[in-house]
């Protein structure tokens, strides 16, 4: 007969916190060295540690797109990734798009087309629009609607958002 496994006799350890790690990130063109616990999501780093609250939390599960940011130019859900995984990365959030007083053309187009109401999904929609243009995959109106479907807008501004994306796509083609 086997002995009882040893683990049963070991008392359950007290809950512990993970040790911090050093990470270097460039956020909106500013390089910063951060001491981070590995369980901190990129989204929580932005919002709670750096107070860059323009990036929104709408579900924390990658289901709504409100936390979309640009990581090395690509759009990602910042809630679905841990900050420590991105040592050396270049991150652009909604706060980093305008050049001083001058808005990014996509930001201005969101205002002109009234492509938002409450404004909560808007930073994600704007970053997603820029990411979509960078991807170069969208060709048709249906493509736009499909490829913008990761960003939920509960206020229902979709038809105006589509106008912004169409405009941005045409602008990028003209370049």
């Amino acid at each position: 007969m086997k002995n009882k496994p040893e683990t049963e006799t070991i008392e359950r350890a007290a809950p512990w916190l993970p040790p911090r790690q050093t990470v270097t990130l460039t956020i909106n063109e500013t390089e910063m060295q951060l001491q981070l616990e590995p369980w901190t999501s990129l989204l929580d780093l932005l919002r709670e540690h750096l107070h860059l609250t323009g990036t929104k939390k709408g579900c924390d599960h990658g289901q709504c797109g409100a936390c979309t940011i640009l990581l090395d130019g690509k759009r990602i859900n910042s809630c679905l990734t841990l900050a420590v995984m991105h040592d050396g990365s270049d991150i652009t959030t909604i706060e980093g798009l305008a050049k001083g007083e001058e808005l990014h053309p996509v930001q201005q187009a969101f205002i002109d087309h009234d492509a938002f109401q409450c404004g909560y999904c808007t930073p994600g929609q704007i970053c997603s629009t820029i990411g979509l243009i960078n991807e170069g995959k969208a060709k048709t109106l249906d493509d736009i609607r499909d490829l913008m479907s990761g960003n939920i807008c509960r206020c229902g501004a979709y038809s105006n958002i589509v106008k912004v994306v169409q405009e941005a796509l045409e602008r990028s083609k003209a370049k």
Partner: protein
Amino acid sequence: MRTDYIGKPTNRVDGRLKVTGGAKYAAEFHVPGLLYGYVVSSEIARGNIAEIDTNEALQLEGVLQVLTHENRPPSAWFDKSYQDEDSPPGSPFRPLYNSEIQFSQQPIALVVAETFEAARYGATLVKVVYEEAPHTTDLKANRAQAYTPKKYKSTPPPDSRGDVDAAFASAAVKVEQEYTHPSEHHNPMEMHASTAIWEEDGTLTVYDKTQSVKNSQNYISQIFGLSSKEALVISPFVGGAFGSGLRPQYQLFLAVMAALEMKRSVRVVLTRQQMFSFGHRPATVQHFQLGCAADGTLQAVRQEAFAETSKFEDYSENVVVWPNTLYKSENAAFDHKLISLDVYTPLDMRAPGGSTGLFALESAMDELAAAAGIDPVELRLKNYTEEDQSNNAPFSSKELRECYRQGAERFGWHKRNPEARSMKEGHQLIGWGMATGAWEAKQQQASAKALLTPDGKLTVSSATADIGTGTYTVMTQIAAEALGLPLEDVTFKLGDSALPEAPLEGGSWTVSSVGSAVKQVCDSVGEKLLKLARKVENSPFATASFEEVTFADGELRLKSDASKALAVTRILQEREVNAIEEEVTSKPASEQKNYAPYSHSAAFVEVKVDEDLGTIKVTRVVSAIAGGRIINTKTAKSQILGGVVWGIGMALEEESLMDNTFGRFMNHNLAEYHVPVNADIPDIDVIFVEEHDDIVNPLGAKGLGEIGIVGVAPAIANAVYHATGKRIRELPITLDKVM
């Protein structure tokens, strides 16, 4: 410079803040030393907490406190202290009050820690032993227990008239059916959050997600015995609400309790899962009888609603009032019963009662039209009513006929083949459906303050909210036009409990109520300016009355001769006035009581249904709206677009699925609770029909937050019938139901 802003498409004045990330929502205010509260939710739907062990959580580094019913600081005892402006009759839920569990996901503990992650981890370490009791969560299985509430939260069912049984029995054409829709959740993009800042003098500044800072302030004041100076509530931006912020939600209670207990600043943000734990559109079954003569004249209307409520409050909404508002009938009977379940109390959700009642009424009318062989628009025109039969009051204005006419024309309705399943494009069955919408256009009492300084800058304020509706923008437009000032020189402030009283931001009444107060307060500033102007040397206004002058392009002018003018800034400077400050309370005029104020709409929809797969796609929508005077055609259109999107969600997607075994909404996340995404939304054509109304309020504007949704779901259901020949009476209309 042109300062006539009303009726013009105007960009949102808060647009720049919203596109740059500068707009701050309730969870985004930071102070050093801020603590994080994470809510532990009940895993059972009814019973008791036998044991709650917080030791392990408290051992975690960074966790400072775990508040439960066992160790919470004292709060108010009495039910009435927990009542708020939107409470239904009954006993409001009291968080952490005792060991009783009244609904699944009930908050049972708050873990407070130095970081969000530690609080979240700590919450998983709280050990709870429950004593489960049997729960009841199935609406249909409990229909026999339906009861008439002692008191309705809503308008009580209208009186019956005539003899419905006899008229229905002898009617040439009849429809008798039941229509059902499930529970739905608001799911604004921003999750409910409160940040309670503990100030050095022991007072609290609370940033809360709410549709009424005053309501939140009164709630915490009553419960925690704080004066209005000891607890300020601030809410400059709200990331959508749709009714979810009409009542103070439990994160507010918990954040304030924790801040008072710990004498520290505390933030509590709910998770998306917890957004399914307070308030929803109640699942409702409606029984309808409609009978008409062969020519379509309605002879009998019976509507009975069976709606869910909680065991502790009797929630009801205006489900059975709509037939009286829309269609003439000599015989009618209405009833509205409740079925109490072990769920949280339902909560007003965009067009509460209207979305529900009109889905059933407008589906039944479509069935009647099909049975009588009459065009659906014709049937509605045939029974058009010029008065609200609930109180025999004439409408303050009603351009619904124009909605039908312009909507049908834009849509191309005359090309519709009335036969169901008659229009096809390859494998796609094409269906065209329409429905009517109506919503109340109420004015409530509201106050506003205005401050005009010699540099020509005007600040107007009221404790209302902007939940995305455009309040900041339209109030700025109204104020700027009233005093003829450039938009850039006018600031509108809201969302601060120290500002003048405003009603809850809901019911589509904000423009009507707060807008009227803004207009009135600016007019009183204008009268003061005129008095000052009369004293200016060689004043052209020496004998002018207020009716004889106007403000435009930065000037006070004589209406009869625009060249007789004085700049507003010059009047103030010449008279050496430091500022003009006025505050008013605007009340609805008494003559409004003699009229029925409603906005109306007609929705026309095209759907394509895949013959083989049953997939349904809305491909075209025309929504014609009679909403009185439109203040801002740009934001107004957005309101209607949003309403249409909500109608599409209601018709085809949204359903909070109750797992009756556990008494829990099982799809409590945005992956499984489907709301429309970009790919679901087609081109939407919005028409604002011209409508003049001097009665509804001084602005003649009716409010647009809800009229956009109400007709859309039934129009889609009717289009699906027209496409497939299948009448789906249970929302949402999913592919399995049409196959």
